[in-house]
Each structure stands twice: as structure tokens, then as C-alpha cells.
């Protein structure tokens, strides 16, 4: 079973990387995009096959290590069949 953690910056937190990408895109002639934000993904594979169990464990991992909850938000997606 796989858990995908999507991590994004909280609303209002500066995203210098997103800004730099946006600048670069517009220099390359992509002008239709008016906002770029960046995020991270962490993909965890489990032996366990109990969805609830995996979700709970991943949540705990997020809170203790994976996510900087001061400036980041996250959501967890569970994929049963890899």
C-alpha cells in the first residue's frame, strides 16, 4: 500500500521558489500563468495493507518529521494498488 503526502506552503507564506519559476516562465514566453506555488511530495510504501492503519501512521509521520507544520500544510492520499 502506498501513501502519498502532498506538502504545500501555508497561505501567505512567501514562496521564493514559486516566484522565481514564474519569472522564468514569463521570460520564456509563458504569460498565461498568474501564480506559481511549489510543494513537495513524499511517497511512502508500506507492507501493511490496512488502509486506516497506514493513514494513521502516515499522519503521525507527518506531524513528527515529514512536515514543517509551522509553515506547511499537508494532505495524505492512500493508494491501495501500486
Amino acid at each position, binding site marked *: 500500500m502506498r501513501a502519498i503526502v502532498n506538502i504545500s506552503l501555508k497561505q501567505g*507564506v512567501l514562496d*521564493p521558489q514559486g516566484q522565481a519559476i514564474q519569472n522564468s516562465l514569463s521570460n520564456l514566453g509563458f504569460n498565461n500563468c498568474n501564480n506559481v506555488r511549489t510543494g513537495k511530495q513524499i511517497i511512502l510504501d508500506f507492507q501493511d495493507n490496512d488502509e486506516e492503519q497506514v493513514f494513521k501512521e502516515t499522519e503521525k509521520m507527518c506531524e513528527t518529521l515529514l512536515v*514543517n507544520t509551522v509553515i506547511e500544510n499537508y494532505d495524505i492520499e492512500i493508494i491501495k494498488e501500486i
Partner: protein
Amino acid sequence: MTVSNNKLYEDNKFEYMVQQESNLESALEMGLTKEEYNLICTKIKKIPNKTELGIFSAMFSEHCSYKSSKKWLKTMPTEASHVIQGPGENAGVIDIGDGLAAIFKIESHNHPSFIEPYQGSATGVGGILRDVFTMGARPIALLNALRFGSASKPLTKHLLSGVVKGIGGYGNCIGIPTVGGETNFDKSYDGNILVNAMAVGLADKDKIFYSAATGANNPVIYVGAKTGRDGIHGATMASAEFTDSSSEKRPTVQVGDPFTGKLLLEACLELMNTDAVLSIQDMGAAGLTSSSVEMASKGSLGMFLDLDLVPTREEQMTSYEIMLSESQERMLMILKPGSENKAKLIFDKWDLDFAVIGKVTDTGRLVLNKNGFEACNIPINPLVEDAPEYDRPYEIINNKKIIDLNKIVINKTINEILVKVFKNPNMASKKWIWEQYDCSVMGDTILSSGQSDAAIVKIHGTENHNSLGKGLAMTTDCTPRYVKANPFEGGMQAVCEAARNIAASGAKPLAITNNLNFGNPEKKHIMGEIVGAIKGISKAASYLNTPIVSGNVSLYNETNGNGILPTPVIGMVGIINKVENCLGVNSEEGNTLLVLGQSEEFVEGWISSSIYQEIINNEFDGAPPPINLENEKEIIDIILKLNEEKLITAAHDISDGGLLPTICEMLFKNNLGIDLNLPDLLSKKDSKDILLHSWCFGEDQGRVIVATKNLNKVKLLLKKYNIKFFILGEVNSSSNLNIKNVTTISINDIKNLYENTLTSIMC
């Protein structure tokens, strides 16, 4: 001024709200006291609206107003013939000859780094760099003084690794070498780490920029990054004691962007090369508020700003938010009228925002427009001059206890103690830290972390046919346990150790920046630590003619009532005329080591408050080693003299841990050994004799070990100047530190501990 206008309400509900009258409750929420609120109402002759009150609250915060420390800061020695600008500007400026000035300052980012170690420390570096380049200097070096809780705690590991990554993340990217610093661990910092960053820059002496506004009607320009809702009320947060609930304040963390910082640095220096800039101020704590108020106040003028013209990153920001945002990488400038276009071209080139947002006025008032309405109209004077200044009650508590050597139960051999010393992360090498810092970018680093008692950076372009050039030496120092035990002596000690470190690198000490990190000043004994330390620093600084030219105060470093060890960090800068004459700590085979400042007769070392005492008793106790300023000055002068005559090849001051660990550190690099001489009085002692131990590990001040190939000439000179000294022995290739009839210590074994203690904690 209340705006009860429907149109405003419809356009922007939040702006309408901040333009409503404040009340006592809102003042308390913003961290003001009832007395302060009443004072504000009286001084401005009206009830402030919330934006106006927010501006007052930021300006009255400890962080901006220095209300608890101002009275005492004023007593510090700040003048000397080489001082161009003392405290009061963005950074201190000293004359270093050849038409050049060194500009430097240290600043704390303690609270933000505890909440978010990476961003907190990164923005700390960014902030201190802006302070330096605002004055027209190109920054050439960074240092940092760090304090963390117990090294064994997982939280400490997390904080340390984040802080180091953040400091490196900013400094490495912007391309300024981080060349030195200091790192301590003590449980008193468990809930309040200290992150102090120091920046040193160079400028032409006649091209220094100041912040005082000039000329009514001159344009006020905003440059740099856009304003977001970052760190609103950061200045108030930095002034409030931590409680466990402060995690709620978290979204106010600011994010550093070293890339934009680099653009701003280059653009500002490029613009300063033209004649367009009249005055300039970076937006640091309390952002647009403190920058605009300080510029206007210093020029005894007023300022009008149209906040609708401020480049913002987020929708619907209110006047309150724009004024109090602490978004990074921004500057406020006053330009010569007519030069706006020329200036804008430069900022366009560097892809930075450039906006004319207002003008200087002669009204003495700060007037702000938002959405077409007056969001603020207050006199500037009360914001600065009437900021509260407290004469807080204080009590200086000294630990006078002198540990009776005869009562010490020696439970360890000299070898075991040495092992304990270097297993102590405070004493072990900090290479795990400094290897994450780019120490050689800019190509002028001569000595950096781990090579010498002070770092040395060459002054770019000063090389000529008979020298590789002039250099600046720099260091940060403080021994908090001494300050705790006796604030006055501890304050003096920090200055003396810094000066000794500068001298031991071959440079002449010149001037000081300082970072006063303490607990809650409303407590009498903490205020006593502040007062005592300032008095000690002042006394030593004026004796050594190293005036204080800049600094920073960080108070309320307490969590749930537990304060930190008092930590007045001294950042010192010195000059060396020929960098090829610099001194490192590493000795070479065939060198003779001598300790200066200590004679053959000296055997009873100062054990109170020492690392040795801690190892034996598990806790620090006793009075710190006393400082004798005359001796300190003598030692500094003689080292410089010996070096000038090219008689010594290495030098290392004796500080934490005492004589024996200092000798070891001089042998590590080349895996060398020494047959150590003992004074006659000790030669017959057995290996568990307390005098022998105190000789090895006592922390008496005013001592430096030097290495020479010219023992006879050195002796002559020392005798001529009447300097106490003792010959420790000749350095050999044995890799053993041998004390005859006492013990043999393998330098390799000890070195392994020294090098790997911190790494093994961190990995």
C-alpha cells in the same frame, strides 16, 4: 481619526476596521501597558486608531525602543579617534586607514529561530547583511554566535541542524563567506536558543550612507521584495516571554529569500555608486514602521506615504498590515529629486520592485494614505523620544565562592579528565557546523574557523609588491557561566578574550559590536546581570581602547520562568597590516611552546567555575577567574610585538579548559607531541596531586601560548618587557603529550574525540 464612510467599508472591510478607534483592550493585546496607552493618547492628543496604535506598539516594543536597557547602553564607551560612527545607525563604522572603513554589527534572531530554525536563522543573516550594506559597505564576512540546550536532547539536534542549514542557506547563496563564530550547549538554553549573526563590510570612508531623512518634498522610495503578511508583530513577539502557547503565533514566521537578498545587495551598491541616494534605511524589525519613523525622526522631519503604492504580494492588505509586515529583503530610500528614473533602471536590471511611495515633509508627522483615506496621522516625536525608558530595579548577585583546592576529591586521572574535556560538545571541534558554511567565497579568506583564534579576511585590492595586503580580523566571544557567576567580571572577560583572540591571530584589536542576550529584565537579578555585564564590558572596552560601535539587545529569553545564562556576546574586529603575518593555532615540529602571562612560580590554577570543576562536581560553581586589565593589555601588546619581529609562528589563547587542552589543540593538526616541562614546584608531585591538576586545567585569564623557532630572541624580548612566561617544551613528532613521571597522552586518541564528538551527536 475614525473614518465612518460607507465607501471605504464596501471597498475594504478590514481597512475600515483598522481605521476604527482603539481602546485599552486592543492596546493590551498589542503588548502595551495601560500607562503606555494613556501616554500615547495624551501625546498625540487623540485616541489612536488601530493602525496608529500598532505603530506605537511596535516602536515602544523592547526590540525597537530598548526601553529596559537604554539607560545603561548610554554608559558604554563609544568613542575613539578611529570611530567614524558609533551606535545609533544601522551598523558601526571605524576607520581602518587608506581611506577605508570597516562597518559591522551583530544581531539576534533568537525567538524566530526557536520557532522555525531554518527560516529564523536565515532571515537573521539576511537582516544583519542589510544593516551593513545599507550603509554603503560590501559585506565581506559573516560570523555567528550560537547557544543551544543540552546536546543530548533530540530537540537540540533538530534546532542545531536547522539553524546551521539556515545560516549556510543564506550566507552560501548570497556569496559571503562565514568565517567564524562560537557554539555552546547548556540546559538553560533548552527553551530559548540564541542565534546571533554578525556581518562585517568594507566601504570607502567618504562614501558612507546614513538614514536621516533630508529635504522636504524629496521622494521616498520603496525597493526590493513585495510586502506580504510575514512576521506581523514580530518585534512584539521578540519582546515577549515565551510560554507554551506561543506556538499559536507561528504563522507569523518570515521566509528568507537569499536570491532576492543578493539582487538587493547588488542593486543598492550599484545605485550608491551614483549620486542619487540621500539616505537609506533597511526594513528590519517592525518593517516600514520603524524605517520610516527612524528616517523622519533622525532628520527632524515628517513623512507622507501612500500605502496604495507599496508593492504587495497579497490581496487586500490593510494599512496596519503593510506598516507592520516584516517581509524580508526591502529597503526605504530618499532620493535626490529627479534621479528616480536613473535609479529605477538599476532596479529593473536586477528585477526588483521600485516604487515612489511618498515624500519627506516638514510637518514632523507620519501621515499615511490607504484607499484614498488617511489611515494614520500622528506626530513622529512621541514615537521615538517619548518611547518609554525604564530604570528597572536591579540587584547584582555574585557567586563569591572560591573553591578550596584541598577539598576537591580527585576521582579521575589527568588522562580521564582530558577525555572528558574533549567529549564535551562545548570543547570539541565545531567542524560539523563550519563545514556547512562556505568559508572561501569572495577569494579573500585567509584564516577561517578552526585555523586560528580569530578569522582573517583580506581587504580586497590592498595587495602590492611588498605585501599580500591588509586584513580584518574578527571573532565572537562570551563565557556565559562566568557572567552568571559574576556579571561584571564575566563582562570584562568576554571583551578580554575577544581581544586576546584577535591578537593571537596577529591583528590589533580595534572595536566592538555586542549582543546582549538575557532573560526577563523585570526580574531584579536579571536586570542585575544586564547592568553588571554592561559595566564590565564598558570598563574593559575603554581600557583596551576598543569602543562599542554597534550592538543589539535581546531580552525575555525565558520559557516558563526559566531564564538563559546571561550571554553578552562580544563581536570584535581588528586589523593586520600584512596578512602574510597572520598567526594560526597549529605548531610545527621543532617549535618551542611558551605560555605568556604565567611564571615558573605559578602552580595554583583557578578552578572555581572551570570546566575541570564541572567535570569533578557535575555542575558549575564558584567565582569566575578574575580579570587583570593591565595584564591583558600587556599580553596583547607583547604578542603583537613578537609577531612584528617575526619571532612566533603560532599563538592560542588559554580559555575554557585551561592550559593542557590548549596545548593539545596546538598539536592536533600535525599529529605532534611534546615533552611537557613542569614548574619545579610540581616536578615531584604525584599524578593525583590537586596542584598538578589545577596547573593543567585552571582557567586563569591573561594567558596565551605561543610557538617559536627563536626561543632565545623571544626570551630576550619577554625579559625586556618584563613579561611573565614559562617554557612548556619543544614540539616533537611523537604524537604523545608526555608529562614526565606523571602520564603520557596519545594526541591521536584525544584528537579523534575532539574531531568527532559533535559529528557523532549530529549524525
